């Protein structure tokens, strides 16, 4: 038989933890940082996990923002945009390749230049 003391403990737990849980969700909702740590590209050939921080960081590959975010060539002081801001999933424009082509050119091109990193589809794409 459950005593009233234990019942009170359960009620207390439920109420206090609900308040703490509610506050945690309300105050610390996870927002994406301005400079992404990792990015998950969603594609029909499977998702690709891209470690932005490792490519960027001095302790990583130390690549400059402008090497990938080519829109900075026009204005070096601008904030780098997300690739999908210009490169749409479907695009007929010749100047702005669609997202898949843009990312493939960017990733594969750079890896080929440096003769490093993945060489097969399934080494990046989660199939």
């Amino acid at each position, binding site marked *: 038989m459950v005593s009233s003391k234990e019942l009170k403990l359960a009620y207390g737990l*439920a109420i206090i933890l609900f308040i703490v849980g509610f506050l945690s969700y309300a105050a610390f909702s996870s927002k*994406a940082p301005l400079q992404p740590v990792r990015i998950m590209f969603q594609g029909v050939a499977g998702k690709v996990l891209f*470690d932005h921080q490792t490519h960027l960081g001095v302790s990583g590959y130390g690549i400059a923002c402008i090497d990938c975010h080519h829109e900075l060539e026009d204005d070096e002081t601008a904030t780098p945009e997300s690739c999908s801001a210009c490169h749409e999933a479907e695009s007929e424009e010749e100047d702005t390749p669609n997202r898949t082509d843009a990312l493939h050119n960017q990733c594969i091109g750079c890896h080929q230049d440096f003769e490093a990193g993945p060489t097969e589809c399934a080494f990046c794409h989660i199939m």
Partner: protein
Amino acid sequence: MNSQKKFIVSHAPFQHNGSSIEQRSYNIILATLPAILLGLFHYGAPALGVICLSISSAIFWELAMNRISKRPITIGDGNSAMVGIIFAMLLPATTPWWAVITGTFVAIVIGKEIFGGIGSNAFNPAALSVLILILSWKNLFDFDQALLNYNFDFVAVYPLGALKHFGVDAIDTFNILDLFLGRQIGGIGSTFGLGLILGGGYLILRGFIRWEIPLSFLLGISITALLFNISEPARFVGPGFHLFTGYTLIGAFFLATEDSSSPVNTLPMLLYGLGGGIMTVLIRNIGVYIDGVLYAILVMNMVSPLLDKIRPKAIGKVV
């Protein structure tokens, strides 16, 4: 010659260590704390939110079911709080609030209350709930995607995911000691091997869970993983990796040992654990799913009543 103690019959094979259900529930909650503390350290306030909301909503669901079914209020036994905390341990820290509340609904109402409440559930409520959530929203449990915005000082890729998608070569970057010490991504309370073993050890020493199930479960995983590894090392990883990744340790100590869904006799307990361990590695190595622990445990939960048919022969005979 004519001893009065000639023939003694006792109930078999119940064990009683003198404690109550409430003590059992709160001791299990206590045993989860080492693993949860590291989760809080890694993931911060969002993880706290998931854990608190999970426990409180689990208690509320049980209270609601008690009221609706006009049965005595049972939340005082602490079982719903225990299910809530174990469920939260399996979740990524960024789980949205609606998924936590839906999950505890599935665990408490569908996993436990409709079977008749504590002691009557055929399946582990927390494991059942996570699997239903995975089947309903598979991206919720994609740990790589869920934890994108966290910056860790260790390899921030879900180890079992890396193994499944990119093969044995991709897991060279993981170090067994790091995995054991919880330096890996995963569920809030399911990655800290040392903490889970300490918690499980405490429960075994206090008699709240039986040693046969976790030991045989881990043995089943080790033997099967070793056999796979010996047969084809380029394709299958060794037992150390399987033991300290995914839901292995939380499954062994906190999920498989759940009282009403696991067997009570010694040999059935050993077979139950062993079967769960073997199936876990089979699913991980040649199955579709990344982690097999929850599926293996649910299947073994289903087999549990059959296993308990293996019991000592009754003394005497019916004339």
